[in-house]
């Protein structure tokens, strides 16, 4: 009932352990599964899971811990990722394609190309990134549901 105030039809939260590369990617797989079961179009599912994958990797590579929340509303999907960790000293610089502070270990695993944040930007319809150096990072992004089939049952739940 309280969710109806904000028109949030689903809210799921996932915990991400920093440095745990073994399961890296598993949360975006879970998000994808939820969206697929809910009946969203493959375009929305793909864009959301690419952005979620990159966001999840950022927490694993750079933070000590974090939480990723998925909100489903009638008009958009929203993902919020909050982490505790080293943070980003210069957000503008970090947004540039190819810029990376990744360690050699991260590179060896096939990450740290400096493409993560721009991949998120390119696959979403709005993105906010704020960070306190030495404390952590807050990332939010939206995927618009404009043009989506509104008969998706989840969007009508509790109508």
């Amino acid at each position, binding site marked *: 009932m309280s969710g109806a105030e904000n028109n949030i039809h689903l809210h799921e939260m996932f915990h991400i352990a920093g440095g745990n590369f073994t399961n890296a990617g598993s949360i975006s*797989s879970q998000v994808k599964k939820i969206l697929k079961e809910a009946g969203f179009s493959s375009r929305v599912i793909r864009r959301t899971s690419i952005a979620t994958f990159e966001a999840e990797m950022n927490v694993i590579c750079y933070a000590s811990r974090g939480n990723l929340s998925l909100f489903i509303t009638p008009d958009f999907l929203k993902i919020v990722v909050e982490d505790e960790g080293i943070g980003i000293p210069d957000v503008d610089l970090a947004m540039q394609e190819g810029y990376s502070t990744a360690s050699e270990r991260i590179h060896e695993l096939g990450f740290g190309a400096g493409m993560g944040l721009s991949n998120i930007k390119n696959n979403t319809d709005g993105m906010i990134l704020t960070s306190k150096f030495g404390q952590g990072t807050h990332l939010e992004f939206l995927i618009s549901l404009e043009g989506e089939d509104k008969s998706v049952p989840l969007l009508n739940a509790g109508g």
Partner: protein
Amino acid sequence: MKLREIRDLLDAELITGDANLDKEIKYVNAADLISDVLAYSTGPGALLITGIIHPQVIYAANTMDLGAILFVRGKRPNEATLQLAIENQVPLLTTRYIMFETCGRLYQLGMRACIEKVKNVRG
């Protein structure tokens, strides 16, 4: 090109049991960085040619709805990665050809890239 033809052309081995080898593959991406896999493996059902054998490549394949992954340079993932691929129904193949040869042989037979060129020069 069918997955079976790709396997035969590259003398590759299917390592995920009973995949559908009649699956049609139209586009290919070759990358050794996960972000590049996510950025350039567009078009569902693409083939990824890579040397990455960590489980993340399977999650990335799932994210991008890849048709199959072909490991080059004789690389073989461990059992956990293999199981993850089977669970996610991502066919895995491995070839002893290096990446350049693998791409060249496929190109020669008409296979094309998911994306030919990026928009901007990257640092």
